[in-house]
């Protein structure tokens, strides 16, 4: 309404604001770097870290897909675990190929998510969070109780490897899987379906008054989110060939939530940036790794206080700070005259 607001949303005539090529070119450099990384750097370890980052990006972005419908589940790593264990067990005991286990585990995980999502569609806010939290913990107990079939406390070993253990092949497989998943989730959010979910998040009463079957849409969001969580988990199972229940416990869910929150929950790019920074940074500063939970808490506080939109909002903040400074200089110059 006010002029003030309009001018902040559209950075008017600042020199930086007009550099439209900046964003695509930064993105192009980044894509080229990621695509060519194996050629530049033969370290298996670095490729390993990037593969993990890809897997967690799929998981974090799919968690955000559920949150745009106004639901905040605290069981997303458990759904990754369901996908991982389904694929792992199908591979170990039935001898299925990864090309069969990965998609089918994702589909079954989506089905389980929707089944669980059905009664949960009546819960809201804290009740939803608590309910899903206990479900997530329950999943881990089922794995424990699975004995030899699921590997129990000791973990599941002997899962068929992907692409013959080749690190480079795996790198490109997971890069491709991530790109395809992100495109699929992007389309989901920025179609009328995503708009409807966002409408429900803002007011479920108003949404249902215009004929939106609110419960069904919320279940749909959970199904899509869980499909990609299951996909990420199943991919992880075949990449790692060993599964431990601890990888999918409540702490793992909290990390996914942190990736989303620190990156920025209001933007599609948010969880991608959040995951990249929180997974990659501790790896490149190994000394800090021990303290990473504390650092994440500090980072979260910094983000909340300084960048309410998450790390995604950082360029905009820098830009407006820069243009303010230029404006300030100009005024100083004029008044000095």
């Amino acid at each position, binding site marked *: *309404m006010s002029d003030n*607001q309009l001018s902040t949303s559209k950075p008017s005539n600042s020199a930086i604001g007009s550099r439209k090529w900046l964003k695509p070119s930064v993105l192009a450099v980044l894509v080229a770097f990621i695509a060519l990384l194996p050629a530049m750097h033969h370290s298996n370890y670095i490729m390993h870290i990037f593969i993990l980052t890809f897997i967690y990006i799929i998981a974090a972005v799919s968690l955000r897909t559920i949150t745009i419908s106004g639901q905040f589940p605290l069981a997303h790593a458990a759904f990754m675990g369901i996908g991982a264990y389904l694929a792992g067990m199908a591979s170990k005991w039935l001898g299925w190929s990864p090309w069969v286990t990965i998609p089918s585990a994702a589909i079954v995980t989506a089905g389980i998510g929707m089944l669980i999502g059905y009664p949960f569609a009546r819960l809201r806010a804290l009740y939803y969070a608590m309910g899903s939290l206990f479900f997530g913990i329950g999943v881990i107990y089922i794995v424990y109780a699975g004995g030899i079939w699921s590997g129990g406390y000791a973990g599941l070993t002997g899962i068929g490897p992907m692409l013959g253990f080749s690190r480079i092949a795996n790198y490109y497989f997971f890069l491709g899987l991530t790109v395809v998943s992100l495109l699929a989730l992007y*389309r*989901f959010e920025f*179609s*009328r*379906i995503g*708009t*409807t979910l*966002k*409408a429900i998040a*803002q*007011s479920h*009463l*108003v*949404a*249902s*008054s*215009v*004929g*939106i*079957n*609110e419960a069904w849409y919320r279940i*749909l969001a959970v199904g899509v989110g869980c499909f990609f969580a299951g996909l990420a988990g199943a991919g992880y199972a075949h990449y790692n060939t060993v599964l431990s229940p601890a990888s999918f416990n409540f702490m793992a869910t909290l990390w996914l939530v942190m990736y989303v929150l620190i990156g920025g929950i209001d933007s599609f790019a948010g969880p991608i940036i959040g995951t990249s920074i929180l997974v990659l940074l501790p790896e490149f500063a190994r000394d800090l790794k021990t303290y990473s939970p504390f650092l994440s808490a500090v980072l979260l506080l910094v983000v909340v206080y300084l960048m309410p939109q998450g790390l995604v909002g950082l360029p905009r903040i820098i830009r407006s700070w820069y243009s303010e400074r230029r404006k300030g200089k100009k005024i100083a110059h004029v008044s000095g005259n």
Partner: protein
Amino acid sequence: MFLEIKGLTKRFGGLTAVNQFDMHVNKGEIVGLIGPNGAGKTTLFNLITGVIKLTKGQIIFDDKDITRKKPHQVAQMGIGRTFQLNPLFADFTVMQNVSASFHLHPRSSLLGIYFNTRTYRKNEDYILQQSLEILKLVGLDKVKDELAKNLPHGYQKMLGIARALAVKPKLLLLDEPIAGMNPDEIEFTMTGIGKTNKQGATIVVVEHNMRIMDLCDRVVVINFGQKIAEGLPKEVRGNKEVTRAYFGDEHVA
């Protein structure tokens, strides 16, 4: 009869919010539902639209029983409604509020939406054009790109009505459309409601503000969850029960 409510009762624990309430609405009418604060008017709307479950009674709309239908099913039957508070999607623009409300007419399939089929794109074009029509009708086309939460109160109420029109309602339930508006806005809104009625929508309007009576073909007065009077606006105005409900015993001459 277009809408018929029979013996509607709603108890919240020990409190009877609506008690053995009967009411009917004929096609094409504007019916005012008035009564003091806490009389049960909004509860009645919530019962009709399935937002809260009724304890006893029956609701028939257009010859179909809608007694235990869910809110989205009621909307699908052709009943649109507005809300007294938070009547909109706050973080959407005015335009998005209306276009997102076009969920039923036309309706695209999920796969059609996802794969961006030609039918879906055609539907979306139609929706944008229709939304603009509706915004022009309620006079909000000039602010269509503003965020809904930044609009002044009167505009937000109008947007609530615009949103409800996107359902293409045969019956429109308006919950305090002119409450808290200034005289100009009231004039504008009342004209808008009249226009919508002439275009074929039957309207039930809950109000507090007695001015709404100028618009109504018939008025039903409710107090403590019970009907205390019914009739033409001028009949109701002179009714002693009504005066007592609003102003207390000492004002009854």
